[in-house]
């Protein structure tokens, strides 16, 4: 399990000959001792054990690796300078992933496509008498809407009689979360965020109804696996050796992988309509107002080129696409999973932008630091701070729906050191009136004058315009040097 973040958190040093150059270990890369990620001078390296080096040399000879790297589904990797890790048997240098994300921020379609990529790589590897030693979605990252496998040392030779060691992990981290949403209509993300190793077979079985046993894959992958795990739990029997002796071979793994691929490909997330999934048709702007807002965003975005932009509350990504014209990478976030699913599927079906990464994120409950020492998986801002942030039709949800004080929200934005395009939605706007209809109005801070004063306190306002006949006001503001 590894991460290729371009913005590492400070961590322990590893040895190096050249004095004065800082090397930072990736704190999330420790489970497999054969190859761990570290950063040096902005580049991403992986130190290899002698075994991992031999596996890499064998992987390089396979017919699929070059094509997969060229197509972007395996991270571009080359031999690195061994001087950067003198204690290692070998060093790899990886291309940078623009923004690290986790499966508990992905849509159903993203987790499904990541699962399909994993199974396709399994088939490629098996055809070359190799296998992937683990099966975790944390080994997959994204270039826009394209999944990229990043864990090179996961490829190892397939031993004689060896079963698929990662099968259980594949079920717990890919298959069960997908089934949970497809068969029970339950959002899989909190389950993945809640347990770093995914959903155990026993828990998954309890989540399934009797009727679900008839659904594809449940009887064997869930019920049978749970029963067999219970039966053999804590045993000391050498099942692996017995299987090898009886002639277990890769044909069994290929069959399993092929059937799993067909099963995963057929799963669908259900078709319930969520609040914002048809935002493109149901937003509260008429055409002229909408075009005015888009033009303001376009002018603000065009003031310079941005390395990383965030679009918070992006809905189906209309404004993300505008910003993408002037940004290397846009992370488009919304709490509504179906709006993000629409964005993902539309991007995938279209030009397939490598600039726009859609993520399901609830700002009021965004992904925290978690895992071992609270550093294995990082919180949102620690994975790369934005240079430009869009907060369009968002502030009323933050203050009124999520009860976050306006000053807190502006302060958080300022702490990111980002420029903002931010829209204040007035109290006479029908969207705010709908939010206030059935709750006590405790939002004394929610007034346009207060909003502008708070913004001006932390940012330099470069441009502003009224929208919707003055019921809303849009601002472009840049961070004060002293802010944050």
């Amino acid at each position, binding site marked *: 399990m590894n991460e290729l973040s371009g913005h590492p958190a400070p961590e322990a040093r590893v040895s190096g000959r050249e004095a004065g150059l800082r090397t930072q270990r990736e704190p999330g890369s420790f489970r497999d001792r054969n190859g761990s990620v570290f950063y040096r001078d902005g580049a991403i390296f992986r130190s290899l054990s002698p075994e991992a080096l031999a596996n890499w040399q064998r992987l390089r000879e396979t017919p699929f690796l070059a094509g997969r790297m060229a197509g972007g589904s395996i991270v571009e990797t080359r031999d690195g300078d061994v001087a950067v890790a003198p204690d290692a048997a070998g060093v790899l240098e990886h291309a940078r992933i623009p923004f690290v994300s986790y499966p508990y921020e992905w849509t159903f379609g993203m987790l499904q496509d990541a699962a399909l990529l994993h199974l396709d790589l399994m088939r490629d590897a098996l055809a070359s008498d190799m296998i992937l030693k683990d099966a975790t979605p944390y080994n997959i990252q994204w270039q826009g809407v394209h999944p990229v496998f990043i864990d090179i040392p996961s490829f190892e030779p397939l031993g004689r009689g060896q079963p*698929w060691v990662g099968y259980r992990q594949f079920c717990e981290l890919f298959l069960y979360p997908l089934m949970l949403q497809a068969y029970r209509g339950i959002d899989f993300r909190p389950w993945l965020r809640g347990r770093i190793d995914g959903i155990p077979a026993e828990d998954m079985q309890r989540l399934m109804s009797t009727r679900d046993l008839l659904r594809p894959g449940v009887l064997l992958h869930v019920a049978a696996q749970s029963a067999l795990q219970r039966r053999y739990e804590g045993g000391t029997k050498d099942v692996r050796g017995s*299987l090898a002796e*009886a002639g277990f071979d890769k044909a*069994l793994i290929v069959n399993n992988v092929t*059937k799993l691929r067909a099963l995963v490909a057929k799963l669908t997330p259900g078709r319930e309509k969520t609040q914002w999934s048809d935002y493109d048709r149901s937003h509260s702007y008429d055409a002229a107002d909408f075009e005015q807002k888009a033009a303001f965003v376009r002018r603000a975005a065009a003031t310079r080129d941005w390395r990383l932009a965030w679009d918070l509350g992006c809905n189906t990504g209309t404004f993300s696409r505008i910003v993408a014209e002037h940004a290397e990478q846009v992370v488009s976030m919304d709490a509504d999973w179906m709006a993000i699913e629409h964005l993902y599927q539309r991007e995938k079906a279209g030009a397939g932008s490598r600039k726009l990464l859609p993520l399901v994120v609830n700002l009021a409950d965004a992904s925290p630091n978690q895992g071992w020492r609270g550093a294995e998986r990082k919180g949102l801002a620690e994975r790369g701070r934005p240079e430009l942030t869009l907060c369009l039709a968002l502030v009323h949800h933050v203050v009124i729906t999520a009860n976050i004080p306006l000053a807190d929200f502006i302060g958080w934005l300022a702490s990111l050191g980002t420029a903002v395009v931010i829209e204040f939605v007035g109290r006479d706007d029908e969207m705010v009136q709908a939010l206030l209809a059935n709750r006590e109005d405790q939002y004394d801070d929610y007034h346009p004058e207060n909003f502008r004063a708070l913004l001006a306190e932390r940012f330099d306002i470069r441009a502003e315009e009224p929208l919707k006949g003055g019921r809303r006001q849009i601002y472009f503001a840049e961070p004060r040097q002293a802010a944050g």
Partner: protein
Amino acid sequence: MLKLTSSLAFLLVISTLFFGMTTSQAHAYLDPGTGSMILQVILGGFAGIALAGRLYWHRFRTFIGMAPAESHVGDETGHESSKSRSDL
């Protein structure tokens, strides 16, 4: 429904196969799960059925004294330590 019944029957057959085996250590940083490994015989399709047949045939031959009760398994790749086991 036929598929479901045959899957269940196969599962019952498979689950009786792995009694009385001795111990050794599997080599992987990940625990593959004993039950999950056994399940892979069922998930292997026809190749799995053939393997289950071989396991039963060996057990039958052991029972009637036509096969030795102890045998050695070595792994060419060194991934498996050599250990004895009996009555599969």
